[in-house]
């Protein structure tokens, strides 16, 4: 009983190790020394303040998009639309941020920017929610299609509406809406872009956990996800939970814009947040959509993401994409294998 509990807990770790081993084999295959390469990667990511800051910065949006998958997942919905929700949230954040008066106090400007990002993502997700509950269209299909729609819409808005002519970026947002960086506040993680959004993401993961597992709302939400028919029999308004969880997910994904625009670039450059939505699916799936474990999962992906860059000169970044993919595959395969052993 107890030993199997430990095995259960160590399963993701074993899977990650196995994935690194596979990466090592690949590194050997291209004629490099894996010990050296991994050594360099770990010292440049976890060994310096700047490296840690980069990892945290990259993990921040993944926490948000991971939660954007996890929350609807608890209601039995598969939100693949984090990508589009993040893009729309980011453009709304950039547009509103740019429209604010430069003299506006951060005490007002930052909340306005955050709300703009959330509203952008939430509105995009509400389309999915509407189609799902009104017409019964699968959220998987609509959320995928809306990703491409969002790419196009955002591209258009950057090129023709909010952009600087001749570039593919928006104008800079009001200084008041800049999200303070941690190195400016504390001196930690010097020069890295990690900013206060990190704490926002941490707080949101905790909040999502508390809502899902400790409240009546979360109890109903989980019931909807686990047994839709029984939830209806129990008098639960299942459509309400689907709509709310999807819209909340959109708001979470939209906040990616806060990290990127308000905390890092201060404008939106086309393609700047591409990929985080898809990666968020992996982040959530890796830990069975548990809101707190998503923090660990996002850190791992942040590490792999930045780790790949640090050794780019020696080994192509694609090797690390293989390791990323291998982590997912190994974790999923080990889940099945353990089930069979039982």
């Amino acid at each position, binding site marked *: 009983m107890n030993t199997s509990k430990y095995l259960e807990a160590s399963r993701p770790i074993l899977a990650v190790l196995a994935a690194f081993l596979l990466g090592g084999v690949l590194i050997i295959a291209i004629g490099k020394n894996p010990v050296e390469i991994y050594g360099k990667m770990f010292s440049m990511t976890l060994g310096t303040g700047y490296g840690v800051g980069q990892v945290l910065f990259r993990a921040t949006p993944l926490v948000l998009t991971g939660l954007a998958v996890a929350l609807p997942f608890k209601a039995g919905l598969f939100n693949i639309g984090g990508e589009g929700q993040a893009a729309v949230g980011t453009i709304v954040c950039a547009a509103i941020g740019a429209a604010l008066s430069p003299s506006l106090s951060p005490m007002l400007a930052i909340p306005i920017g955050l709300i703009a990002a959330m509203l952008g993502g939430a509105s995009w997700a509400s389309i999915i929610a509407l189609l799902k509950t009104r017409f019964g269209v699968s959220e998987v299909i609509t959320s995928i299609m809306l990703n491409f729609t969002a790419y196009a819409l955002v591209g258009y808005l950057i090129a023709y509406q909010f952009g600087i002519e001749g570039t593919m970026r928006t104008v800079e947002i009001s200084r008041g809406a800049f999200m303070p960086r941690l190195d400016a506040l504390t001196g930690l993680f010097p020069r890295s872009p990690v900013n206060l959004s990190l704490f926002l993401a941490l707080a949101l993961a905790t909040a999502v956990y508390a809502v899902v597992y*400790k*409240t*009546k709302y979360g*109890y*109903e939400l*989980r*019931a909807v996800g*686990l*047994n839709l*028919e*029984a939830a*209806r*029999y*129990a*008098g639960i308004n299942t459509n309400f939970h689907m709509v709310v969880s999807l819209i909340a997910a959109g708001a979470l994904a939209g906040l990616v814009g806060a990290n990127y625009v308000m905390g890092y670039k201060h404008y939106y450059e086309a393609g700047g947040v591409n990929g985080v939505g898809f990666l968020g699916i992996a982040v959530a799936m890796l830990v069975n959509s548990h809101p707190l474990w998503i923090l660990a999962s996002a850190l791992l992906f942040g590490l792999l993401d930045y780790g790949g860059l640090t050794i780019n000169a020696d080994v192509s970044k694609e090797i690390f994409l293989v390791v990323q993919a291998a982590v997912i595959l190994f974790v999923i395969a080990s889940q099945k294998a353990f089930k069979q052993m039982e």
Partner: protein
Amino acid sequence: MSPTAIEFKGITKRFGDFYANRSVSFSVERGSIHAVVGENGAGKSTLMKILYGLYRPDAGDLVINGEKRRIASPAHAIELGIGMVHQHFMLVEPLTVVENIMLGDEPVKNRVLIDRQKAVVRLFELSEKFGLSISPYETVESLSVGLQQRVEILKLLYRDATILILDEPTAVLTPIETEQLFKTLKSLAKVGNTILIITHKLDEVLRLADRVSVMRQGELIDTLPAASATKETLARLMVGRDVLLNVEKNDARPNDEILSIKNITYTDAKGVKRLDGLSLSVRAGEIYGIAGVEGNGQSELLKLLWGMPEEGATVSGSVAFSGTPILGKTPREIAALGVSHVPEDRLKYAVINSFSISDNIIFGRHYERDFLSVVGFNLKKLWAFCAEMLSLFDVRSAKGVSPSERIGNLSGGNQQKVVTARELTRPNLKLLILAQPTRGVDIGAIEFIHRKVIDARDKNIAVLLISAELSEIISLADRIGCIYKGAIRKEFSQTEVAKRRETPNEFEKQLGQFIT
């Protein structure tokens, strides 16, 4: 050939620390009908799965037709002449009868082409030999459940099976179909086939079987000739104590009408009329039983009463609860009036398998103020309530029950006790709707649940009972309506029911005539 078809010799099967079978030994004579009875979790299914090659025993031997065998797979079992009809049929519904029967064993001509004609000829031979008529070119989905089961049996005969295992074969049959099945099984046995039947219906065991093996908690308690057994002795062997098969009760003293259903018609989205002018009324302090074969509109009636008609269905007529119309209300609004509902399919509609017992015991009542705190649940009150219910309703589990245990770990009967506890203790309860309240529930627990239902009636609660088990209807109901094709075809008044209950077997036959 040896006169013994199957011999189980000290079969033991463990799952972790749990013994599903512990040195089970008995033998089955060739050409006999042998019943295996026992409560849920007694190990009947495990034993049959071992015989059918789905599990390997940890210890013990199987002797088939005098030879010791290790059965590696169902394919191997079929090779040895052992076939199984599962409780849930393994048929491909859109395919025809003959396609289903030859599936996996198709005759071919010119090496590649399926020789359907050959299969049809063989099917006719078998049909004639065993008196199992069937039309080969009809699709299985268009057949009645009884005929589908016949296809399953023919499938086995087609593969030359001589040992037939049937798992709860009468669970889904009408009384007439059951009679036909029994005739078939007896004639199959007469020509030398061996029938092993798993069941929990003791009446049927006594009528059908030559010998009975009783299992309890993984062990074989006794094997005895059916002729020398009675329902009471079998029940005692199964449960390990005396069981009251028919709960005693006083005459009902009905009061005001609580539920009034008038001339309800329900047409589903496909345009099929499921309820056709159904009317009935239930008064406070009485149990109204609806007897009927499944699929005659019971499910639709339940959905309607609970405010959940399917999308696209059209409904006419009226349903009133103490004078308040309830058609169009949501489940929550209906529950708020003082209505409880134990749905027919517990796992699908009444519990969340991976939730804890305490989460399930408030499921559907979780918005009652007593269970809530400012943001979440009032865990202290919730646990106290749960603990009280668990002891009041005698919910048990192997390791000593606790509110935090997953409800999925409980046996079906204990899960049903949790659901019953939840629904019977709803504040301000006036009407209790019970659908198949003891399906899949052990005999011991049935007695308990029946007792609780009668107690509720005696507290002036109106009870609407829907059950496919006629014996359950007869032992519980004060008035009985026979449902057939969406309408109450015949109603028995309280005095009629009281009188006829004295001869339950006669009464069962009588009811049977009105529901088919």
